[in-house]
């Protein structure tokens, strides 16, 4: 994947001020309690920042509060306390369309009701721009084509969505998110249904997107090694609490990880300063 495709067009990376893209300050969230007692906190006060060209992994086992944090970042829910800002604007104060211009969320896709071609699907990512009832312009088409190129899915352009493989479909969904030209790219457990080759390919792509196209990428995951290998920063969550924020080397402490993931683990430091996690020696006993 040549960087020319990504950075050649000046519009892929907009003229946003470099620096802190995402700022999360003491954000917390709780679902309303059913028995009128103290609300059960799904996410305790969490703070971290993310910059342009950074890939941040939100790491934790199931029920650690990852999805809640994602919802807050995407603006689906307002934080109970604290603030979440993207490009110095509070996310919950944005209207729907502006929010869609800043933040793109990539989730597992639901069933399509009617057949749709790949390029039509990706073009829908241009919806937040222009009038509500809109016909796509040349610029829209260019941007959509760019997005497809960025995920290496040029060849899929005229295919039908329901004929794609799992990996192909995920690339297309990613392309649609890129067509939104967001500052922030959010991905919710994107490696779930992929084999190891697919996982690596996806993370590599995300890494490239961050480096070359200056997106800020946030990936919610529980994959320890992928997170360690590809992310700049890790936010470690456990039972609704943010335990640690830092580089993989800083966060991957054996005792901490064992406690969080409730499994015997060993942490190795590899060349390049990135840790690797393997099952502990006493696994099986």
């Amino acid at each position, binding site marked *: 994947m040549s960087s020319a495709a990504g950075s050649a067009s000046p519009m892929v990376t907009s003229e946003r001020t470099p620096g802190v893209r995402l700022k999360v300050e003491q954000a917390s969230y709780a679902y309303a309690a059913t028995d009128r007692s103290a609300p059960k906190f799904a996410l305790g006060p969490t703070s971290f920042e993310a910059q342009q060209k950074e890939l941040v992994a939100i790491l934790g086992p199931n029920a650690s509060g990852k999805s809640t944090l994602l919802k807050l970042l995407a603006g689906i829910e307002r934080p109970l306390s604290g603030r979440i800002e993207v490009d110095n604007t509070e996310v919950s104060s944005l209207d729907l369309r*502006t929010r869609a211009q800043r933040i793109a969320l990539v989730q597992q896709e*639901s069933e399509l009701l009617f057949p749709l071609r790949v390029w039509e699907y990706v073009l829908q990512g241009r*919806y937040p721009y222009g009038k509500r*009832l809109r016909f796509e312009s040349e610029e829209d*088409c260019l941007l959509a084509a760019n997005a497809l190129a960025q995920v290496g899915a040029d060849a899929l352009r005229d295919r039908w969505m329901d004929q794609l493989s799992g990996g192909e479909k995920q690339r297309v969904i990613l392309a649609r998110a890129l067509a939104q030209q967001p500052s922030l790219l959010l991905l919710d457990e994107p490696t779930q249904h992929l084999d190891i080759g697919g996982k690596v390919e996806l993370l590599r792509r995300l890494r490239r997107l961050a480096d070359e196209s200056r997106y800020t990428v946030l990936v919610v995951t529980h994959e320890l090694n992928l997170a360690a290998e590809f992310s700049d920063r890790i936010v470690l969550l456990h039972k609704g609490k943010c335990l640690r924020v830092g580089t993989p080397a800083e966060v991957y402490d054996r005792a901490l990880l064992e406690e969080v993931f409730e499994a015997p683990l060993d942490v190795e430091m590899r060349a390049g300063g990135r840790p690797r996690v393997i099952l502990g020696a006493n696994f099986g006993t």
Partner: protein
Amino acid sequence: MRPLTPKRVALICAGLGALLFVAAVVSLRIGAYPISVVDIVKTLGSGILGRWESIPSEHRSIIFDVRLPRILLGILVGASLSTAGTGFQALLRNPLADPYVLGVSSGAALGAIIALIAAPHAAGAVQIAAFVGAAATTAAVYFLGRRGGQVDSATLLLAGIVAVSFLSAIIMFLMTTMSGRDMRGMAFWLMGDLASTLPTNPLPWFEALFFVFIVAGGAIYATSSDLNLILTGEQEARHLGVNVNRVRLVVYVAASFLTGLAVSVSGTIGYVGILVPHVMRMLFGTDYRLLIPTSAIGGAILVVVADTLARSVLSPTELPVGALTALAGAPVFIYLMRRRVR
């Protein structure tokens, strides 16, 4: 990558519009009273120029008071029903949804039957009562079909089914108490009929109908980009900036309005709201920016053709137009479905 352009929409609609024009012209020619094409042109010309004396009064009567209003009514009703059908299919996320599934037509039928019992000879009473019934049912089903303050497809569908069965029971009860003579009016209305006598001055009626169609149809068309997105997934649409709740409310109200209006003036004509969107989808794709206008014109064509056949197949006897749309609609539908499966 060839996205939909306004020009393409206009081109396709013009083509369909031409077909509609041809259907209307043929329909103008057909009827129990024989009028040659030459005489039709003369009559139309004199009418437009305002020179009424130069044509026989019978020709004027037949063309301007019988056939033309019927064709115009057919166009409006057909366009309203198909547009409503496309809206409901998006709203309920179900390609088999027709405009009557949420109970609007049952409410209208109940209003009509009450009017037939209470005031059988009052002019326009049936139409007004039918529309009131439709509006009331729309509101009731909406409030029943909400979940967490928002329109929810599954709950809405259930509420509609409940409404239909409840209203049908009342209608059946009332029909058993009606005398045989009054039933006649009801039977034709339930099958769909364009021959209800229009009031003495139909022009304001038509203007009102046209106005409502433009407003409601326009409201639905304005959401067509939104609907395209919603159909790929509601959550995804929200994340792309679509105000899903507002869109659903607008579509629900507008489509119910269109259905209620069509049913109030012509009874429940079946198949138009479900078949036309399907055919248009198969021909022109699922993009709602094209689907809505093509469905509207397609529906108009279908009703005009069906009504022309209804008037001519057993002339001078007339069949109810709903019988023909059903007779023709079912086989066409089956054929199209089989083609698609292959």
